[in-house]
């Protein structure tokens, strides 16, 4: 389990690093997908099977497709990771974020759950969505419907 976690973490972080390093935008998208798959693997080591599968379905399936569409339909991107003036501020900002997250992760007194049975999480998530969290769930669905109608209105010709 520990070996698996470190291998997956290495894969995820390595792929994430490659996203910024590679020059070709499509390669960056492919590395992003690899990193998503790595995260799904990390979820599996955390016994979150449902979230892991949904991670692959939604991120590696749908979001990645969205990215590919965005890259392919953007003529000015010229298929390359361009240089721009924001490099230094971005470096500083991401450095600060990493420091902050690391600090929180190290300082928090985590409650460690023992490794029990590999429970089925799908039912629990479903129950949670329709009983305690029904309002956020409904708001999210209304928002998505609104976005969908907006998209349809935007592309209608008449």
């Amino acid at each position, binding site marked *: 389990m520990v070996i698996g976690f470190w291998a997956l973490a290495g894969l995820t972080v390595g792929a994430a690093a490659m996203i910024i390093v590679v020059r070709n935008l499509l390669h960056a998208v492919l590395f992003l997908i690899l990193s998503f798959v790595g995260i799904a693997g990390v979820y599996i080591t955390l016994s979150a099977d449902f979230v892991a599968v*949904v991670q692959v379905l939604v991120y590696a399936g749908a979001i990645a497709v969205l990215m590919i569409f965005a890259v392919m339909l953007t003529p000015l991107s010229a298929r390359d990771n361009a240089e721009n003036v924001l490099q230094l501020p971005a470096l500083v900002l991401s450095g600060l974020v990493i420091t902050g997250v690391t600090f929180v992760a190290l300082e928090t007194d985590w409650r460690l759950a023992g490794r029990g049975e590999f429970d089925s999480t*799908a039912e629990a998530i479903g129950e949670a969505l329709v009983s305690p969290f029904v309002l956020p769930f409904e708001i999210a669905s209304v928002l998505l419907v609104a976005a969908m109608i907006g998209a349809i209105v935007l592309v209608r010709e008449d």
Partner: protein
Amino acid sequence: MPILSPWYDFRDLGNAAARLADALRDIDAPEGVVYALVGLLGAVGVLLFVGLTTLVNIWVERRLIGRMQVRRGPNRLGPFGLLQPVADAIKLMQKEALTPRLADGLVFTLAPVVIFIPAILAFAVLPWGEKMVLADLNVGVLYLLALGSTNSLIVFMAGYASNNKYALLGAMRVIAMLISYEIPGVLSLLAVVAFTGTMSLSGIVDFQANYWSWLLFFQPLALVIFLLGSTVELNRSPADIAEAESEIIAGYHIEYSGMKWGLFYAVELVNSIAISAVIASLFLGGWWTFGLEEFVPGWLIFIGKIYACYFLLIWFRGTLPRFRVDQLMAFAWKFLLPMALVNILLVALEITVWEEFDLSAGAVLPVFAVVNFALAGALVAGWARVMAAQFERFPRRARLVPDIDVPLPAEGGGHAARAAV
């Protein structure tokens, strides 16, 4: 079947694996070794099945399509042309696998290799028998859908890396197809999952064994939607718009040759078998067949069902003409998606009635079956008629010009004709 059947009970090869695991534990082997060995055994079994069926299916598919199209198919090499797949494989391996100079080399080479990963992984969750399942995930159905969604991305890798405009067109078509057909696929299986109350494939088979019936009888609409949707995702004719020889030559694998092309060809067959197996276990009861599995090994029954579904896929391929791209998209959004939504509503209603009134399964399931079949037939026929109504102005049978309500494209057209009347 009792848990501790003898190891030679070949009705369920899971028995042998369980006995092997027990024997290993008896000699105090570490749990990791037991797990790895039994897993490896299962994986080798699955790979053997996949490899052999792929070889056989090349022949089966070509022969059957030949028969359907009043040809003979491969019949020269060996008895009935049975050695043709072997000859094909040898030929492909000898051929040079060219890489175009401006291609994206690494991605180009990686794509046909990586595309096998989701195809093979899909076999891990299939229940071949009561205990004969490699990984009984409790999110099995969702796992299969997730694998299916990654497949198209790898096809896109191939199309993009080829640096060929036809390949890129094919790749973009695959992506558009994925977005459209993933939704009805997910929704149709959601109905199945809601009805059975489990996402594990062996759980769904157990449900069918438990109620002594196949899910086909309760979920005909879901079966139709999933079958049509997965035919499209398989990228086979009548929905092979991504490779469409007559439009974009061969689409995403236009630049591939030799064994790299062979891998794409093989993975298509593997995927067809995987989809057939999923349909067989979700809708046709998997290894369970009304008590027959007591006498015939469950996995043999399952293979028989897989081939029945596979025959259906070949039938589609051999007889239906290819859709146009816009027709295929419209089919997903305007036909399959509304059907799937209605089906989910129906299933939710039935489950609620079943649980709220605490009815016995024997009383309620036959009613569901009749209602669902009637509604499915009425919905498909009715919605098809509504959809077809708008195309009626392009008449399919000969009619008098004055009867047609619209101007004809010809000069003067309908107006002139009507004025004359």
